[in-house]
């Protein structure tokens, strides 16, 4: 295990613990406080564990001896004396000096034996030997960096404008593009040195990419921090009482994903406050507490993050929702055959997102179509569940970072499109006649074949007449259980590439079936296809 990559975390956490130690020591100096002693014990314990894992022996030893001493004080074997506190403060200075050496990659060769002896004497309840104390090793530790105390220091933590990382990522995207050109050249090359060089370059670019991605991650907390104030203001305006609970706010997402979530999050919360949570009187009449609850729960699920927003309000009235959808021209047959889960998604129908309708249906429709668009645009999924009278839950599952994805290049006529590799089940070469027949046998059943050109609304006659055709078998949804397979007929397929996807801006973002754009070889733009949209029944979206 390469332990050095944890150094930054170590430094951050340890200096946090040392601040805690300082606070605790100053507090117990004023008088014994069991809770403060407990907390001090845990600080030393944590520093010990981390230092041992990092191999920083002097820090581990110091923390370990102090932990023992605190354990003695905690269990009342040792009386807490002012002498002990001042010894612990000396040790604190020594640990800080050592930590600084860790930070600057200096050897941890300070002699701490004097301090350890003092701690041992204290641990035995013996008077701390003043002779030892005078030879206290804090001095030598500091003596090795005498200039430090009067030096102007720059912090190791830098504040960098987020845009810098966007640019860095964009540059890596271009690098990946060039790299794939080199990679294709290696097939034809006989030079081992060239192949090795490209391989090494590839690894460096990969490392660069993952480091930049890691640096771009921000905790959900950054997004949710502003919510209590928003809710407070809405409550004052509406006379409602709402308590907000947030769990998993440390889960981190790429800043671009988090940024895109800001709008949807406010929409969802506003809907909960406006249409979900009842007034205190209504709640009491319905045998609920006067204060409504909104809970945001975030957790990670493999490489994706899930954010749930749950309220305990009045829920969504599905029957009324169906009636409103009918009134807005949805097909009667389809509405009748809908499951409850499907019917709830009607709330994302653009026609339903007018405030009047929503208020009438006691639902939550304001901007839900926009919310769904954003989530799906990020390559995520949105799910709604609701129990009338008991509340509503909105579940968003999102990629933690979207910027670069693996995609399969396919050709339609002279155009190149990209299909996210995660959706591709199989690539088949079939006769043009079969590809045009509308369905084919696949595994144990029949699957539908659509022309990708037609699905994208392109002029099919532009495709050259061919004997053979390629069918890309894709899943309609990420989840295997409730998805089906569909074949898309294309003219040909190319390589699997790492594409740096730039989001589409209006008006292009309104295009159906595409979710991003990238530049492939020779400065050609290519759209990344939104398979969730393309595999849905053409009539499902209006």
């Amino acid at each position, binding site marked *: *295990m390469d332990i050095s990559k944890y150094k930054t*975390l170590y430094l951050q956490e340890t200096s946090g613990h040392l601040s805690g130690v300082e606070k605790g020591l100053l507090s117990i100096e004023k008088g014994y406080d069991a809770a403060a002693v407990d907390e001090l014990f*845990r600080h030393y314990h*944590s520093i010990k564990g981390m230092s*041992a*894992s990092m*191999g920083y022996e002097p820090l581990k030893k110091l923390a370990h001896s102090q932990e023992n001493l605190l354990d003695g004080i905690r269990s009342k074997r040792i009386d807490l004396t002012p002498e002990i506190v001042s010894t612990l403060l000396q040790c604190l200075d020594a640990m800080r000096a050592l930590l600084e050496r860790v930070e600057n990659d200096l050897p941890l060769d300070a002699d701490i034996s004097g301090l350890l002896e003092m701690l041992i004497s204290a641990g035995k309840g013996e008077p701390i030997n003043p002779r030892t104390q005078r030879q206290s090793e804090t001095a030598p530790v500091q003596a090795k960096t005498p200039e430090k105390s009067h030096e102007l220091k720059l912090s190791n933590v830098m504040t960098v404008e987020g845009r810098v990382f966007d640019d860095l990522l964009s540059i890596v995207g271009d690098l990946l593009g060039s790299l794939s050109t080199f990679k294709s050249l290696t097939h034809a090359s006989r030079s081992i040195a060239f192949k090795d060089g490209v391989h090494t370059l590839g690894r460096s670019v990969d490392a660069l990419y993952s480091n930049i991605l890691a640096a771009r991650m921000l905790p959900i907390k950054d997004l949710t921090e502003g919510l209590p104030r928003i809710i407070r203001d809405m409550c004052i305006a509406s006379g409602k009482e709402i308590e907000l609970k947030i769990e998993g706010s440390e889960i981190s997402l790429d800043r671009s994903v988090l940024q895109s979530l800001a709008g949807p999050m406010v929409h969802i919360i506003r809907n909960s406050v406006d249409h979900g949570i009842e007034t205190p009187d209504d709640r009491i009449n319905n045998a609920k507490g006067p204060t409504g609850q909104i809970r945001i729960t975030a957790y990670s*699920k493999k490489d994706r993050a899930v954010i749930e927003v749950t309220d305990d309000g009045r829920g969504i009235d599905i029957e009324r929702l169906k009636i409103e959808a009918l009134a807005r021209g949805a097909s009667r047959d389809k509405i009748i055959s809908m499951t409850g889960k499907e019917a709830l998604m009607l709330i994302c129908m653009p026609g339903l997102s007018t405030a009047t309708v929503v208020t009438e249906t006691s639902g939550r429709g304001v901007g839900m179509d926009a919310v769904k668009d954003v989530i799906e645009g990020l390559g995520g999924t949105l799910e709604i569940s609701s129990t009338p009278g008991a509340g509503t839950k909105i579940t968003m599952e999102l990629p933690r970072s979207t910027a670069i994805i693996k995609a399969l290049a396919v050709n339609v006529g002279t155009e190149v499109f990209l299909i996210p590799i995660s959706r591709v089940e199989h690539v088949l070469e079939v006769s043009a006649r079969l590809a045009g027949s509308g369905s084919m046998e696949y595994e144990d059943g029949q699957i539908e074949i659509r022309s990708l050109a037609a699905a994208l609304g392109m002029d099919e006659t532009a495709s050259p007449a061919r004997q053979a055709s390629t069918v890309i078998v894709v899943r309609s949804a990420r989840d295997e259980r409730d998805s089906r397979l569909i074949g898309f007929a294309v003219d040909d397929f190319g390589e699997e590439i790492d594409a740096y996807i730039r989001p589409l801006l209006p008006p292009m973002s309104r295009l159906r079936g595409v979710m991003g754009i990238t530049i492939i070889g020779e400065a050609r733009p290519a759209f990344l296809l939104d398979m969730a949209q393309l595999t849905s029944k053409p009539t499902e979206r209006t």
Partner: protein
Amino acid sequence: MPKRVLIVDDGIFFRRALRDILTAGGYDVIGEAENGEQAVAEAIRLRPDIIILDVVMPVKNGLEAAREISGLAMPAKIVMCTSLGYEPIVDEAVSSGASGYILKPLNESKVLGALKNLYPAETC
């Protein structure tokens, strides 16, 4: 199916290190908690196969959490994680419902070895 693991430690340092080791070792880290109380709640919510529990934590320590979780009759196997000098705690941990333990400082072989011992019959 990779085993699903819940990591419980009050330090990000150890949570990150454990996550990296487990992920590289083919486990699926499905959640993290930073104290015993969160651990119990997350265990109920996520129903993991394995829970790695640090002993010294604020709010509710690992032993209390282990007792509470084993009282819930969940299939999760509990592995206690503790520092040098705490070996005697291991016995108490076993009687609190733990199936194994990892002694800090952490390294790959200790962590993966301890988890592998939980399933002697399987090769994962």
